[in-house]
């Protein structure tokens, strides 16, 4: 019994480990560097000099955008940008009340809070005092 266990253990260690492994479901990296890099198949393996000169402050607009600030980071990761507003809790987004001195116009409300549109039949009915319904 004991010998068998030792043999089993030995066999387990001798077992080959495959190189192909299941890595799990693919996912987009949480942060991607969009700064310009040479194309992998580029024969020179470098970007033209003129590209570097044209954007002294950052290598690309995407690179700039990744670090830009506007009421907080404009775009930190691809994930948050993809998820949109649904990625944030309501509390995180702040109060829905308008600042003092500013009033929301009714037309700015979502359609479901506005007056229901009248149909032509309804208009005619109102205009004719209801007679159009029996015409």
């Amino acid at each position, binding site marked *: 019994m004991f010998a068998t266990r030792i043999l089993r253990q030995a066999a387990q260690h001798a077992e080959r480990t*495959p190189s*192909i492994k299941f890595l799990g479901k693919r996912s*987009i*990296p949480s942060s991607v560097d969009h700064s*310009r890099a040479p194309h992998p*198949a580029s024969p*020179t393996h470098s970007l*033209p000099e003129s590209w570097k000169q044209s954007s002294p402050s950052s290598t690309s607009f995407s690179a700039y955008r990744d670090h830009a600030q506007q009421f907080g980071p404009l775009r930190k990761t691809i994930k948050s940008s993809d998820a949109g507003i649904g990625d944030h809790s309501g509390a995180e987004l702040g109060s829905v009340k308008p600042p003092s001195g500013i009033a929301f116009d009714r037309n700015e409300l979502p359609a479901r809070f506005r007056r229901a549109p009248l149909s032509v039949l309804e208009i005619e009915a109102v*205009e004719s*005092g209801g007679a159009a319904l029996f015409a």
Partner: protein
Amino acid sequence: MLSSRLIGRTAVRSAFQKSTMPSMISARRTYATEAEQKDLVIIGGGVAGYVAAIKAGQEGLKVTCIEKRGTLGGTCLNVGCIPSKSLLNNSHLYHQILHDSKHRGIEVGDVKLNLDQLMKAKDTSVTGLTKGVEYLFKKNGVEYIKGTGSFQDDHTIKVALNDGGETSVSGKNIIIATGSEASPFPGLEIDEKRVVSSTGALSLAKVPESLAVIGGGIIGLEMASVWSRLGAKVTVIEFMDQIGGPGMDTEVAKSIQKILKKQGINFKTSTKVVNGDTSSEKVKLNLDAAKGGKEESLDADVVLVAIGRRPYTGGLGLENTSVEVDERGRVVIDSEYRTKVPHIRCVGDVTFGPMLAHKAEEEAVAVIEYIKKGYGHVNYGCIPSVMYTFPEVAWVGQSEQDLKKAGIKYRVGTFPFSANSRAKTNLDTDGMVKMIADPETDRLLGVHIVGPNAGEMIAEGTLALEYGASCEDIARTCHAHPTLAEAFKEAAMATYSKPIHM
């Protein structure tokens, strides 16, 4: 009553306002979108362009694809991969019936070639596929403009419509996917009758008595095979000392050259074509040894110029943008396919990398993912190449000469189809599978196949390479019997250990 009347009028006014407001808004919206700015405009409806358009449609982008040929699919579907495969397949059947049936126990009567019908079969397959792409455009909401597009500025494309007239489209993103064209041979004008490019070679009016092929790359050898099988005396002239073009393993190149020679194709390697003369009945080519030496001449009814392809950007108006091209005319891009103007991207033959339809297809999907999700993927170290001669030649990854040049240690294992049961039953035993692996880790570095069905079999090698498999992984994977794929498994065994059937 009066009050209700007043309420009624108020309601009507309100209704009037409501009924006019949307039209005013829509009028304003029409005005705002008069330039029809799309999410994406693609110039070129070839493999790169149409795949990008379909993928963009699937991702919910408003996309327009501009193609001037009048049919979608580009070189590949119209005058490249697809028609050549039709001719290769049918000419192989003809050749096999004619020369390779009696010993298989099939006696046939008078076998005749109907070249017109052969060409019709080719056209039917092309039309079916190009129409299929048009259907996919409709299915995925892609706007298709038949015309020639050229940049007016960084955002606007002017389109000269095929049916006359002009229009313009603008896009937040633009993809250049204009493909490539056959490189001309200096001093030998292509008339597509006696001096032909690959396009002309696909539709010769009759089988030429003699055909000279300048360039022993994949296109040259495929067309050489077609016309040789149909009865032409074919000579292939290659500047390099091996056929098959860049990337083909030297051992494999030698092997296929021997096989093709046995099929009746003549080869002149290490030979350069100095010039050509089309003034007499036959086209005369003056040849010279590549490194200087004996001069000779060659007469042929038809000359195929197959010395490679070059990026096609003619009439694209790149001068109206800041997009740059390199010294070979390729559009310069970065790792995310962006040109110097970040919202103008470029994929396919017109930019870096091998000019292969499946490479263009991979890039097309990746570029849309970059636009939509900010993340795409193409592994340029794992792009297979296939030559559809008989037997086929296919490879992926590194060749032996690449590794030698880079000073990388490697181990090789080969298995011949002459030892494979299925190849034996098919009486198609020419060729072998060759695997190259890292001697320490056993990781697969390259696969090279010359043999029947090599083009299909290379998919297994590509998958193994993409996953970083070892030869032992391949060898320990069960392969059905009797199949040609067993030769693949046995080659893997030969690389890390020993094959069973040899």
